[in-house]
């Protein structure tokens, strides 16, 4: 069975998020609890603010899956609902099949770190 990861609506005011980090390689088996992505959510299009309201989130798996395909690059801005990656329950499940559901994942607010696409200086 094929599972999808579509960019979730983490904040009701967001319309997109940037892929800050990708922690896994397509082709590998991932355990429950594995880190998948760090996302950057910039709300500056929703709010006029003194500084851009950017928050960072980590997506963590809540089930064991095989990582099959990544549809976005690090640094890419993805729209809410956009299919970012595909997973499967078996290593050789056919990717031509439509996803039966989204993968199970958890989202956690995180602190900006040096490995992120956004910003290079402390």
């Amino acid at each position: 069975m094929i599972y999808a990861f579509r960019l979730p609506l983490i904040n009701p005011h967001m319309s997109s998020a940037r892929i800050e980090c990708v922690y896994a390689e397509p082709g590998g088996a991932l355990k429950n609890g594995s880190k998948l992505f760090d996302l950057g959510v910039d709300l500056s299009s929703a709010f006029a603010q003194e500084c851009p309201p950017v928050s960072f989130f980590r997506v963590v798996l809540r089930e064991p899956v095989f990582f099959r395909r990544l549809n976005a690059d690090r640094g890419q801005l993805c729209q809410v609902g956009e299919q970012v990656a595909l997973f499967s329950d078996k290593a050789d499940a056919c990717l031509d099949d439509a996803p039966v559901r989204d993968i199970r994942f958890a989202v956690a607010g995180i602190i900006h770190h040096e490995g992120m696409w956004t910003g290079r200086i402390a």
Partner: protein
Amino acid sequence: MIRRPLHLGALSADGFSIHRSGIRWLIQPGQFCRANQIFGYCNISLQPAGFRLTGDKSFAEETDLQVAFAPRAAGRINGAGAELGGYLSIQRDVCAWDADTVIAQLELEAEPESDVEGLRLLMLAGRRMTGLADVHSGLLPGWHGRTRGWWCDERTVPVSLLSLGICDATGVVLGEQCAFAEMFEAAGAPAQMIFVPDHPLAPAAPILLDQLDRKPAQFQAIADDMHRFLSDSAITPTADDWIFSGAMLTALQQSPIEDAYSLFTPSGTVRTGPADAILLSLSSEPQSLLRHKSLGYHAHIMRHHQSAAGPVFRAFLESAFETVKRSIDDIRLDYEKLLDRMHAVTGARALVINCMSTSGHEDISNYSSFDPPMSRTLSSIASKELNLVLHDIAERRDLSIIDVDAIAADLGGAEHLPDGIHQSGLLQVALRSEILHAMEDLRSAAQIK
């Protein structure tokens, strides 16, 4: 309907005559105004008595001086709008300040209990980041390294609050018109509000400590080092490089906590000491910041401000500085050092806006996915630990916690603090009230210094 003329009222600076522009209005004719709500303003200049020269030692650095007007009682303001207009509402020396000038009429529902004919005057002063930031639009316009305002009341000593926070303090203190209007309307009692922006240097504790301790020779070494890097660069510095480095030097040379102030009053200039209270943001304490490799001073430039630097200055930050990691305990030690130093130098009380520590945007069901210490990664845990540190510090030092964590949770974080740092108007009102409450007992202790 009772109608009362609104006089400009007395305003005096020792040894100077005060001149003003025409009046610019913030309301429509006949509009209802609350007591202490500013409804108009003018620019002013100080001119040495007997001369037509501008400038003064007390206010030499504050080239933007304005007076805003508020009624002492609620009512409709009529007569607003009959002014010269055009450039004559901008130029600071169109006419001399005359206390008897009537600028509008106040219409009241009932006979006032006290004199309402003298306007309440809110003084505004801005120290430009550069003299080139000569902007004429609205209240406290342009690019300032420091702005301040105070109620110009007779025979009172204002309590001063210096805001050294980031965004979670900026909106609360400056308000939507960026001229302290909401804060002063809420304050009522005599107060001075001072605001220093969070750029180019964000006010983390090590930066403020550096400012307090830096000697002129150390600053000169910093300036020489920066000049050397920009001059020796293989690529030509851009305008952004020079502007950013100039702003950095300005911030590095100052120590706002130690600033003393001159105030106009109806009867002359009053000199006060440093601020009685310092408003800080716990959210401005990063877990990593920059330290100069040889000179040892710290820099924390928020990411959205780093992009204002040109390529050479960014190269300077990357090559001349090293990244220093700070644990929660390091932050506690820095905070304690800062508070002790502040207490020793000025005696000011710290008011600290804590961190929002919960988020409806996450759904962690199992923490085993996150490596310890989790405060290194998870923002909610880092915020909770920082908030706890603040309580520990408050037990032993003069520190008031402005508990945005509790207030936002009470009002609803998703609606009123959607990204955890930028508040709604309602939340700002609640925080203003908390800040003013925390300053209440300072009022009796305030003295003209």
